[in-house]
Each structure stands twice: as structure tokens, then as C-alpha cells.
């Protein structure tokens, strides 16, 4: 076994440092001037009441190129009389890869067209993967996903379960594919 000293590979495009770069101090000063210049320029913008940053204040502001097809929080749609469109067929719960949807069906003899309705409809957002398969599986267009991301940071996982009422009440402003029959009286879910 030969033990030759390690020879570092030389690449064809390896950058060569000239005397100027090797002197180190001028290049450092150049870097400091660049960053200092950016600092002063941005600071001047802030001082004159403009925005000196590229950052978007996310929940309050969204970028113009925020994907309109983004799969965010779920919405249960309603019929014109306000009852949920869901017929508790369990297709979404079956297709769900994360198994986060739980539906408990009820029976309503008064409504001959849709005798089944969900008594409970719960989504566990601590496990939801936002794949959108439930939306595709739904035969009744009862569940949709709005582009807004659920604002659900919570201290424990049980508060991340959302039930039927919350899912019905979200009233997304962005989903105009289907008009929602009762206009919301007070906009809900607004941030103060």
C-alpha cells in the first residue's frame, strides 16, 4: 500500500487570487462598503416612510404572486338554506392518506333528497398534509380548500381539531367559484 501525500485536485476553473485579493484588507473594505451601502440605503428608505426590505409581512400582507391554487384551510360549503352540503358519505375520510377526517353521520327523515348529514365533521390539523385528495374525492362539492393557510398555532394538539361549526363558519373571502347563500353578517376570522 503506497502512502503518497495527499495532492489536492486542481480544477480548470479554480479562481486565482491576485496580489490585490491576497492583501485582504482592500477586499474587506470593499465588502464593508457594499454592506454598509445597502444598510444606509435601506435605512434612508425606512426613515422616509418607505419600505426598505424585500420581506413580506406574511399574514398581514401577501405577495402578489401568492398561488391562487394554494391548498389551505378546508371549507364546508352550504346549501341555500344554510345546511351543510355534506351527505356524510365518508369518501373524503376514506381517501385521506393521513386519516385526519372523522365524520359521524346523522339521519334526517324530513329532508327526503339528502337524508344523511354530518353530525360531527372533524379535521385534525396537527396531522393534515394538505394534499387536497378530500376535495377531489367529494361527490357533492361539499368540501373545498381556500388558499388561506389556517392560523392554528396552538399550545396543545387538541385545540388543533376543528369541528363542523368552525369549518362551516370560515367563510373564505377568496373562494368565488360558488356564491355562498347567506352573506356573512360579521366577517369572521379577521385579525385585529
Amino acid at each position: 500500500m503506497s502512502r503518497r501525500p495527499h495532492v489536492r485536485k486542481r480544477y480548470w476553473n479554480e479562481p486565482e487570487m491576485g496580489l490585490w485579493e491576497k492583501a485582504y484588507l482592500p477586499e474587506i473594505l470593499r465588502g464593508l462598503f457594499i454592506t454598509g451601502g445597502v444598510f444606509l440605503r435601506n435605512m434612508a428608505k425606512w426613515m422616509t416612510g418607505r419600505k426598505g426590505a424585500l420581506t413580506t409581512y406574511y399574514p398581514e400582507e401577501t405577495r402578489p404572486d401568492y398561488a391562487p391554487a394554494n391548498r389551505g384551510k378546508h371549507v364546508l360549503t352550504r346549501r341555500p338554506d344554510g345546511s351543510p352540503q355534506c351527505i356524510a358519505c365518508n369518501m373524503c375520510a376514506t381517501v385521506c392518506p393521513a386519516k385526519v377526517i372523522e365524520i359521524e353521520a346523522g339521519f334526517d327523515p324530513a329532508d327526503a333528497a339528502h337524508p344523511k348529514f354530518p353530525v360531527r365533521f372533524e379535521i385534525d390539523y396537527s396531522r393534515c398534509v394538505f394534499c387536497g385528495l378530500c376535495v377531489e374525492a367529494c361527490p357533492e362539492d361539499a368540501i373545498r380548500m381556500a388558499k388561506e393557510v389556517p392560523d392554528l398555532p396552538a399550545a396543545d394538539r387538541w385545540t388543533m381539531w376543528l369541528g363542523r361549526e368552525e369549518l362551516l363558519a370560515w367563510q373564505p373571502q377568496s373562494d368565488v367559484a360558488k356564491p355562498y347563500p347567506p352573506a356573512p353578517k360579521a366577517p369572521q376570522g379577521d385579525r385585529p
Partner: protein
Amino acid sequence: MIADLVIAVVFIGYAISVLMGFGTILTWVERKQAAVMSDRIGANRAYIRIPFTQVKLVWWGLFHGMADGLKMLLKEDFKPRTYDWYAYAVAPWVVFTPVLLVFAVIPFGGTITPARLWEPLAAVFGDKSWPMQIAPLDAGILIVFAFSGLTIIGAMLAGWSSSNKFSLLGALRAGSQMISYELVLGLTVLGLILVYGTVDLDAMVRHQSGTVLGFLPAWGIVYQPFAATLFLAAAIAENKRIPFDLPEAESELIAGYFTEYSAMKMGLFMFAEFIEIAIIGALFTTLFLGGYNLPFMSDAGFAFPGGATVAMPHGAVVVTQLATFLLKVFVVCSFQILIRWTLPRFRYDQVLTFAWKFMFPLALANLVVTALVVWWVGA
């Protein structure tokens, strides 16, 4: 006697509040300046809600410092099973205390005569005047080096007593790096001592209130621009911040010599680092930037190069000097933060090569040239 005591207590209170204030504000300045430098907004979500209202005070993220302090106080104080528990517990204080002590010899203002500030104070203080400095010692700069050398012991203790290989490696790096750069630091200051002929920091500041060549303020940076650059670089290396943060290089050593520290013990290391930024700022201001005086200013007032003089009342002089010192320190701190967020980290062998083969000869050359010039001018 009582008067001396009162003055000492007031000065110590002022110094400690200034240092703590700088330590707290600098965490905010560091975040915000780094953010603005890189087109970001910076931390701004922590708020204080006025009770019973929905008014949330954000104040450009100033409360993040409070949130950090609270977090560090409330976190679990993890205790590793180490064989040297006492050294482990005492190490953060060994790092933190000398940093505070260095400020004792730094003059943060000229002389103050309480009786001239407000007449009734004469009953207590007479017409004595005190230099605005906690310990007006002749040995000034020597005390600074003596105390700042102590922080090495703290870093070494922390690394050694954590019984962790990463900590030990970090401590070794910290030790060799800080000892190397301490030498450069001392050599750069020697040139200034030759020029001023004293090691007393207050006397150095007084020397700097004149003019050189008729129009330039006689600041240390004018006499010794080279030494000023070397001093700042060596001081940043001494403080173990980027680009010299090898002892705590997180990609190699987790957190270096304070890997095993958590909660407020880790907070003490961080706080000591931030206060040391302010200390470096204060030292640089005192040695190279004319200390607490504005250009052409002395305790009597302004004496402009054209020959015009402006006399100032004592109160105005005191306030101007205090404010000037704080402003200069803040600017130097801000410059250090600019350096920290601009330059990439050295490799470890480069750090020591830089100290021994680049800065050390340069500092020596600077010293020799200064000695020759001083001898030439003196002769």
C-alpha cells in the same frame, strides 16, 4: 468623605446602567442592523399589550430583548454530570465580571464640579471636582489588559469543566486565539503610549483634545491610523466574534466552550459578549477617537483651529461630554456589528497565522516606526 462616597456610587450606578443598557440594546441593534443590511425587516413580533385594551406596543421589536431575557430565566437550568461542578458554575461569572470591571478605568466624561452644576450642592461637595471615571488610576491601560486577560480563564474553565469534547476543543481554541491576539492588542497600544507618554486613560483623552497640523483633531486615529485598524481587528478577535468566532463555530463545535450551558448561564456568556462589544467601543473611543470630547473641545469649551474659542457653561460641558461618549461608543459598536455581518469566518489555522504572521509583525513594525518618529521629534 461622604461626598467622595456619593460621587463613587453615582458613577458606579451610571457605569453599570450604561453597560447593561448597551448589552440589552445591542442585542436589538444587532438583529435590526443585520436585517436592514440584508434587505429584511428583522425581529418585530414581540409586543406588550396594554392591559384591558387591544393596543399592542411593538416598538420596532424592542421587546424581543425582554422576551429573550424572560426565556433564559424560565428555561430549564440543565446540569451536566461533571466532575468539577464548582468550576462549571463559576465559569460564566469569571467571564462576565472582568468585562464589567474593565469599564472602571475608562473615563466617560471630563471633570465634574457639583457646586458649579447647582449652587446648593456646594453644601455637600464643597468646590471639589472629580474626574468622571470610577477609578482614576495612573495604570489605566494596564488595568484594562489585566482584567480583559481574565476572561480567558473563564472560557478555559467553562470548556474544561463541562466534560464535553466539543467544549474542550472550543476552550482550547479560545485560549490560543485570545492569548495570540492579546499580544497584538498590547503592541498596538504601545505605540499610543509612546506618543502620549502616559498609560493614564484620562490623560490620553486630554492629549487628544488639541489639534495636529493646525486643523485635524489630535485623535489617536490621526496619529496611529494603522494601529487603530490593528487594534479593532485584534479586539474583535479577542471578543471571539465573527470573523474570529472559531471557539464557538457552530458548524464544527455546536457552541464551543459553552455547549453544556443552558438558561441564564448561557445568557451570561452572551451578555458578556455583547457588553464586551460596548467595552471595545469605549476603549477604541478613548484611545483613538478623542474619548468623551467633541473635536476641538476641552473642559473649558471649544477652541477651533482658526483661533476662535467658544466658552461653555459647566453643565453644558458635562452633558455634551457624556452624550458624546455614548454616541461615539454606539457608532463603534455599530461598526463592529457591520463587520460581524459582512465577513465570513476564518479557518482555524488562518486565524492563528493571521495573528502571528500578519498582525504581529505589522504591530511590531508600527511600534518601531512610532518609536523612531517619537525619538526624531523629541531629539
